């Protein structure tokens, strides 16, 4: 269960959402798209087109070759750093895991139609059935859960149909959960009418995901949720929690430190399934940028601290963001302390 905290204007989280669905289509998985904001048909029309293997792989390796030539010169001042492995911002070798997409092009309708997909548009659904009254949950959420459960059992994703030889994966995408459009006021007030609806929904969804071959991404306008207790509980109930913070409209947009990037990626939690340990990467500082064709997530690279004004204005800010960036599945710097050099 991948829980994504939306950025303020929803631009980038929408992109991530579409990537998830597009990957599903390319892999031949079935899709289930639910939304209260946009009709799922429209969402599916806007998926990015997959890149053909050859051209993109070649582009990446060209770039990498050019970069590595520069670093051959030996360092004179910072010679101690010469022995460290070169930091690679983005993967240079074209790995076979997953696919790449071209954001400037739309996926062809033929490719979209090649998989079976189901949609749930809240405003087109019938009002809830009487059996669900006893659920004590927001009716929009309850209808969505019923719909998902019906698809899972009808299409045999839970292994109930022994006849079916080929098992497939169901990719579920739920857009803007918790927003007012779903009938939940958790984004409007600090003491919502039914504070447990969202968490109950997630628990039941988690149960459905665990007992079937499915994966789910949910985007939530977390910046609107005022009751932080609910956010903490929601984090506990999800496998993976990622937050996107875009720089639009914040003071970081003009901050020269961040000029190459469009926002930060905060990984609040990573899944620890079927194992005592989890796969922890070396670095926790991630940022994203949207180029004309590509949306990339890279290690955050700060340019060298050259001028006085830059350091004075942003040292406090950096300390704050370093605190955020150092949190992960392991630990976080407690309080306002940060390491000074």
């Amino acid at each position, binding site marked *: 269960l991948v829980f994504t905290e939306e950025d303020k204007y929803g631009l980038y989280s929408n992109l991530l959402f579409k990537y998830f669905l597009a990957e599903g289509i390319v892999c031949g998985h079935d899709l289930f798209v639910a939304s209260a904001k946009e009709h799922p048909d429209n969402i599916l029309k806007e998926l990015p087109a997959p890149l053909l293997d050859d051209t993109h792989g070649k582009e990446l390796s060209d770039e990498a070759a050019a970069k590595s030539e520069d670093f051959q010169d030996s360092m004179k001042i910072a010679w101690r750093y010469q022995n460290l492995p070169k930091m690679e911002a983005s993967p240079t070798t074209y790995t076979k895991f997953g696919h790449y997409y071209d954001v400037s092009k739309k996926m062809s309708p033929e490719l979209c139609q090649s998989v079976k997909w189901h949609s749930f548009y809240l405003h087109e659904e019938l009002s809830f059935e009487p059996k669900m009254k006893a*659920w*004590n949950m927001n009716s929009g959420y309850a209808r969505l859960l019923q719909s998902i459960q019906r698809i899972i059992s009808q299409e045999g994703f839970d292994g109930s149909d022994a006849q079916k030889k080929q098992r497939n994966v169901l990719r579920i995408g739920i857009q803007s959960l918790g927003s007012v459009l779903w009938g939940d006021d958790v984004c409007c007030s600090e003491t919502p009418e039914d504070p447990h609806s969202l*968490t109950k929904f997630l628990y039941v969804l988690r149960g459905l995901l665990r007992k079937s071959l499915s994966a789910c991404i949910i985007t939530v306008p977390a910046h609107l949720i005022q009751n932080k*207790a609910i956010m*903490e509980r929601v984090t506990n109930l999800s496998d993976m929690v990622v937050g996107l913070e875009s720089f639009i409209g914040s003071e970081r947009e003009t901050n020269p430190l961040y000029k190459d990037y469009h926002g930060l990626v905060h990984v609040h939690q990573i899944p620890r399934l079927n*194992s005592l340990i989890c796969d922890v990467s070396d670095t926790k500082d991630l940022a994203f940028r949207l180029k004309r064709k590509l949306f990339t997530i890279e290690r955050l690279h700060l340019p060298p601290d050259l001028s006085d004004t830059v350091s004075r204005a942003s040292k406090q800010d950096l300390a704050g963001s370093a605190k955020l960036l150092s949190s992960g599945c392991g*630990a976080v710097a407690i309080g306002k302390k940060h390491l000074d050099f």
Partner: protein
Amino acid sequence: QGKFTLLRDSRTDGSFLVHHFLSFYLRAGCKVCFVALLQSFSHYNIVAQKLGVSLVAAKERGQLVFLEGLKSCLDLLFGKEEQPGQPSPLQFLRGSSCELRALFDFVRVSLTPAQGDSWKGPVLLVDDLGVLLSLGAAPVAVLDFIHYCRVSVCCQLQGNVVVLVHSHEDSEDEENELVVNSLCHHSDLILWAEGLATGFCKDVHGQIKIIKRLSLRQAAQQDLVQIYQYKIQDRNVTFFARGLSPAVL
């Protein structure tokens, strides 16, 4: 015997402690009732196999009673009408009562020794208690449930209870903090896993505080606190004194 152990984590994942206690008590020959609210049975089974215990076999020979919360919840909401004699343990999800009586009855029935049982001491293991709050149970109901379990399992049956909770200093989840603080006061042993104060580190995943609450049983005694650091690996967890991580030496 008759001890209440609280597993607590702050800003890190303390579930490795749950896996440890599960395999520890099963290997010791105790009868275990595991209320697993957050993960599926196969998750615990796979990890337990790495630790050398088979949950499937334990279930078959009646040593382990496993309540898979996720599955139970689905059965309750999507399943057919329940039989009158067997109410679902997660009964409180339906209807307006937020009492956890059905859950307690389930625990009591599972751990009451039956004819011909030769297990050593019953054990109740809960992972994790905060989920009950997320599902709409009131904090008082959760504390009542634990209280009833403690009386029944620790006092009457001379067994042990181990419960996992999450909490942290800046938490705004007041209900959760209330439950955790109350449980701390009544625990015999607290194992508190925390992330390192200096931030993330690859070789030391966190530190664990072991608090033996001797003051609970005897008035004049002081609590004993020990602190170790740990690193989690695929098949076990290594503990070492602070600052003495093998990566540093």
